[in-house]
């Protein structure tokens, strides 16, 4: 194989760091599969080195796989501003938002990938291409199994856009979607692997009470009464105004605070407008805190989630909605809109409540505020559910399993 620049992860994580955190079965299966794949090459390619859940998981996954003797590499494609404008539009169109595309734009998408293909070492035993940005790299495949990993909801794409992408996707050996309902029908193996959270990251690791107090002090939040929290960017689909309406219904009966915390997204021009609209709607109520936090606020978000009594994710439309798992991991009961990937995380009445209205949200908040035993029980069930289903180790296990299954194609039961 061609000599490659060091693209290993700067993280010093190993599988052993997850002992006592992740289910043992996941660690054992990862170890066993890694023994099979020792010395072989596993290449991941996406379009950003930092920011977003995919990069956060890749940083850690590459470190863990490397520590297990797999030659795991992570490459990031480069492009000009026009390329990223086009790929942002593709991203939106795959999720069903109307966008205009010209032939020239698709050509530019391909040409940038072609340039990257010349620079990158695409030689590997398994190649995982993340999302639509690098999807044309399949045209330059050399060896190994090529898998397209779609992290977004592709259930109702703009048809012309999907048609252009599909030309590439159908050349892959397999595709992976996060949820069955996000998938498109393709004539290739389609695996369903939900995303995951990193339990040792700043956003999710255990915090000392000192760290929590410092973060609350920094945000000027008093923990003198129960806290209702929603963490999400300021977007109509997250229904921040609906959350405030629900809070006002709750306030008639229970004294509590509401915190809406989010970070601005550079690719969301509407964000600032919604933020101001939400602030205006909140008025001068001293118990409502609208926080626009810098993207580097992982510890602060972590502290808020650990301080909250009830966490809300009242989305009207959602991708997977991993903030639900993040809150559940901290032992909090979560009330979520029954949309996107949220029903996969919230088992109604067991790990939280699924709601369909402002009134439903208010009712469930009151139920949890007035029944601390129920809140505790749901929080504990939620944490265990996340431990079993939505931690990074389960995702690594699944990626290796898919690779192994593809090398044993045609078998529905594989003993190893």
């Amino acid at each position, binding site marked *: 194989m061609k000599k490659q620049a060091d693209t290993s992860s700067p993280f010093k994580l190993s599988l052993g760091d997850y002992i006592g955190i992740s289910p043992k*079965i996941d660690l*054992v*299966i990862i170890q066993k599969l890694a023994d099979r794949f020792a010395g072989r090459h596993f290449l991941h390619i996406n379009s950003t080195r930092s920011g977003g859940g995919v990069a956060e998981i890749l940083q850690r996954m590459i470190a863990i796989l490397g520590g297990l003797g797999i030659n795991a590499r992570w490459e990031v494609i480069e492009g000009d501003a026009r390329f990223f404008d086009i790929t942002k539009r593709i991203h939106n169109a795959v999720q069903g938002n109307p966008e205009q595309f010209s032939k020239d734009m698709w050509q530019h998408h391909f040409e940038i990938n072609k340039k990257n293909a010349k620079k990158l070492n695409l030689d590997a035993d398994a190649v995982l291409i993340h999302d639509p940005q690098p999807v044309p790299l399949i045209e330059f495949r050399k060896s190994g199994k090529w898998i397209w990993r779609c992290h977004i909801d592709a259930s109702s794409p703009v048809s012309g856009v999907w048609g252009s992408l599909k030309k590439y996707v159908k050349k892959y050996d397999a595709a992976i979607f996060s949820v069955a309902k996000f998938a*498109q*029908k393709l004539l290739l*193996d389609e695996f*369903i692997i939900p995303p995951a959270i990193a339990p040792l990251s700043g956003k999710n690791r255990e915090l000392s009470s000192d760290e929590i107090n410092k973060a609350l002090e920094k945000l000027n939040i008093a923990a003198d009464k129960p806290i209702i929290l929603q963490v999400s960017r300021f977007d109509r689909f997250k229904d921040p105004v609906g959350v405030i309406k629900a809070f006002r219904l709750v306030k008639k009966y229970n004294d509590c605070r509401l915190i809406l915390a989010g970070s601005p997204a550079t690719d969301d021009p509407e964000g600032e407008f919604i933020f101001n609209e939400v602030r205006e709607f909140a008025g001068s109520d001293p118990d409502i805190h609208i926080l626009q936090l810098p993207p580097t606020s992982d510890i602060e978000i972590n502290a808020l989630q650990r301080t909250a009594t009830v966490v809300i994710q009242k989305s009207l439309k959602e991708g997977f909605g991993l903030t639900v798992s993040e809150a559940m991991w901290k032992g909090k009961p979560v009330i979520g809109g029954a949309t996107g990937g949220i029903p996969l995380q919230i088992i109604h009445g*067991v790990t939280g409540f699924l709601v369909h209205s402002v009134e439903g949200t208010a009712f469930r908040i009151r139920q949890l505020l007035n029944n601390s035993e129920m809140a505790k029980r749901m929080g504990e069930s939620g944490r265990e559910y996340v431990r*079993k289903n939505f931690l990074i180790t389960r995702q690594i296990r699944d990626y290796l399993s898919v690779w192994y299954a593809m090398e044993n194609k045609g078998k529905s039961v594989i003993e190893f």
Partner: protein
Amino acid sequence: MAEIKPFEFKQCVSILKSIGRKAKNLQELREGLAGISDESIFHHTYQYFLRGRLLEYTNDFAQWAGEGLEERALAEYLSNIDPYSFKDVRGLRNELLNVIDRYLSDFPKPREAMRGDEFYFNEAIILISPVGIQAKNLAEFLMAIKYVEPECIYFHFYEARIRPPEEVDDFSNWFEDALDKRELANKVRAIDPFMHSLEETRRHLIDLVEKELRTDMERF
């Protein structure tokens, strides 16, 4: 004295595969059920137990009928079908179809699922691997069964039932064949797989094996 064949604990994990087919109403569920692979039926019924039984009903079809279509009576009928009472998937498929047909003849126009709540037919690939623990006697078995992962209990207690030639759970099979403990084997076989979660099944197994060990130790 003949050497006892040790019990080797194995565990399994599944990887989900989409088959690209969905149903938005009962008629489409019926058509799907008639046409999908045995593996897909197997996944939505037998493998339901691998997921730890957090939900209200006892298989994916019943769960969707109850939650997605809000046809609670149908959900109850479907939930009452015990997949382990059938010799093969064909028999199970026929029973599922019969129940749906009866319901459709009584209620020909059941409601449609809301957009996004459709039923998605899937399959799963199962990966099986040894846990690395063997039991050579009942005391070792007891220690292991307390701590193995739930997926291990699924593999030996649930999945084993559809594995020829024995078609019984692996635990009772070992108690009878290797330890010559027929009575214990029968007690284990009397645990209703259909009515217990993996953790409840574990507790029953621990109770039975502990009692058996106590009785063995009191013998002189």
